[in-house]
């Protein structure tokens, strides 16, 4: 069956060239027709809205009226005001730390499932993904219960005598935000890494061993470079969404853990300055994409060097 489906196109009767082009055209038309409802939906409710955000970021608002003359004033505020600079910088640092930690702690798990999962691979993947499907709000709330002053962690540490009074440094800071986000995004890092590890030809690793590489060297020279695409997608899928996280900083971040999403939200709530909110959103996206690009480059470079 695999062979058949691999050559599925060739066992079609050979058409004369003219009708063949017509056939391709009609296949193309059918494909486009079939995807068009979904595509139009995404264009109308995702692409168009993003364009409108970009447009708004160059406009200004005077109470309820929008002034549509082009201006860079919003970006001057977004990039110049110390408060927004701080929030943006902290959001970037947190999303970078979260993605590095998540990918690092998740890699061995993906490796374990792919190489030692045996016949239960699917069960392992299911076990890993279930927590990430459950309510994100509830998981953040749970971390609040764990890390709080009278929380599980403090009572636990007190009862085994490691500390003599509750730690106040666990909750309401950036560390709490990082821990919670690493927990939330674990499966999103494991899955892409697992997929790329599954594609690694096992005989290559064996060959590296036969040729005298030790475990570490064969990992660095064979497994890691070959799983790089998965590592890169894991980085992107964790880093970019976490930069704009709203719930986690609000619930466990306290004053020191506030991130840019709070500022964006404020412009659409009571603060009501849509153009500034739009400019903050666009700035965040552009800067985090640039950072993600740099991380990808750095990873590729690193793998080249260790090879």
């Amino acid at each position, binding site marked *: *069956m695999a062979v058949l489906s691999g050559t599925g196109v060739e066992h079609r009767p050979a058409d004369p060239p003219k009708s063949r082009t017509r056939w391709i055209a009609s296949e193309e038309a059918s494909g486009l027709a079939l995807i068009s409802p979904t595509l139009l*939906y995404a264009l109308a409710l995702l692409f168009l809205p993003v364009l409108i955000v970009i447009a708004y970021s160059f406009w200004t608002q005077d109470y309820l009226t929008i002034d549509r003359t082009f201006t860079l004033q919003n970006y001057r505020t977004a990039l110049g005001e110390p408060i927004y600079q701080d929030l943006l910088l902290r959001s970037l640092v947190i999303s970078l730390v979260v993605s590095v930690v998540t990918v690092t702690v998740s890699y061995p798990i993906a490796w374990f499932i792919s190489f030692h999962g045996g016949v239960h691979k699917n069960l392992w993947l299911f076990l890993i993904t279930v927590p990430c499907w459950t309510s994100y709000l509830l998981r953040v709330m749970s971390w609040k219960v764990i890390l709080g002053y009278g929380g599980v962690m403090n009572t636990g540490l007190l009862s085994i005598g490691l500390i003599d009074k509750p730690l106040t440094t666990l909750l309401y800071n950036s560390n709490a935000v990082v821990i919670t986000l690493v927990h939330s995004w674990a499966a999103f890092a494991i899955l892409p890494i697992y997929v790329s590890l599954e594609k690694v030809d096992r005989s290559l*690793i*064996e060959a590296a061993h036969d040729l005298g590489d030790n475990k570490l060297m064969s990992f660095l020279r064979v497994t890691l470079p070959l799983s790089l695409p998965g590592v890169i997608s894991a980085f992107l899928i964790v880093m970019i969404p976490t930069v704009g996280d709203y719930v986690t900083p609000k619930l466990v971040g306290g004053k020191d853990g506030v991130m840019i999403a709070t500022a964006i939200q404020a412009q659409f709530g009571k603060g009501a300055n849509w153009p500034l909110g739009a400019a903050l959103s666009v700035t*965040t996206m552009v800067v985090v994409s640039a950072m993600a690009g740099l991380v990808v480059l750095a990873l590729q470079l690193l793998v080249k060097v260790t090879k």
Partner: protein
Amino acid sequence: MSGRHGIPKSRWLPAYVGLYLLFLYFPILLLPIFSFNNASTTTFPLAGFTTKWYASLWGNSAMLEAARNSLIVGISVALLSTILGICAARALTRYRFRGKKPATGLIMAPLFLPEIIVAVSLLMVLLQLGLELSLVTVILGQVIFCLPYAMSVLISGFDGFDRSLEEASLDLGETAIGTFRRVTLPVVAPAIVSSLLVSFTVSLDEFILAFFLSGTEPTLPVYIWGQLRFAAKLPGVLALGSLMLLISILLLTLSEIIRRRAEHRLRAQGAQHA
């Protein structure tokens, strides 16, 4: 110590996996534990067993209203994103056409975007159009967010489909619609059911879009968010949260079982063909 194929097998790795699972599951198991605890604070030692927090949910009309809203939104989102997902997944797995990559990229983009930016941009467009925020706007937004999940389930289900079955059906004179209903649908049905369940779960637990787009009709997560300000309401929220966790886990397990059964059947068929 060296395993099969010279792949190193270490002793600490299983221990690490165990710790990791503990890290993943501990926060999730904590909520049910405290939801049965006979105290309004969430500290150890536990103060005894009670079901009063669950009982208190029953008479809570605001919560029941939110649950009803979540149900309406969840079912609508599951249906809409699965129907849209079927169109796109079918087009992507069955036909070759130009612009496949950018189209896929756009549909899958919400996975790679901060949710707040999706929410804010939708909010601006919907308000610009003069639409009143309601459950309808939540549904419109959550479909965008659920599509990538529905699509990945559906694409992997449609991928294993043997195209020659459809060609045979068409050659034997069945219409395109008849072929889809009688040949394609039975094979891809498990993926469709999986997609419905997964989309419903994602919608049930989704907070940001619902928070921005729901107006005066909260869904369950938005209701919970409002309750979190009051420390005294925490046990009730924990009970509600535990119920939601249970529903999510049941739906996901169901979807996994359906998906795996179908995979087994396909593999068995494949073996027969070969």
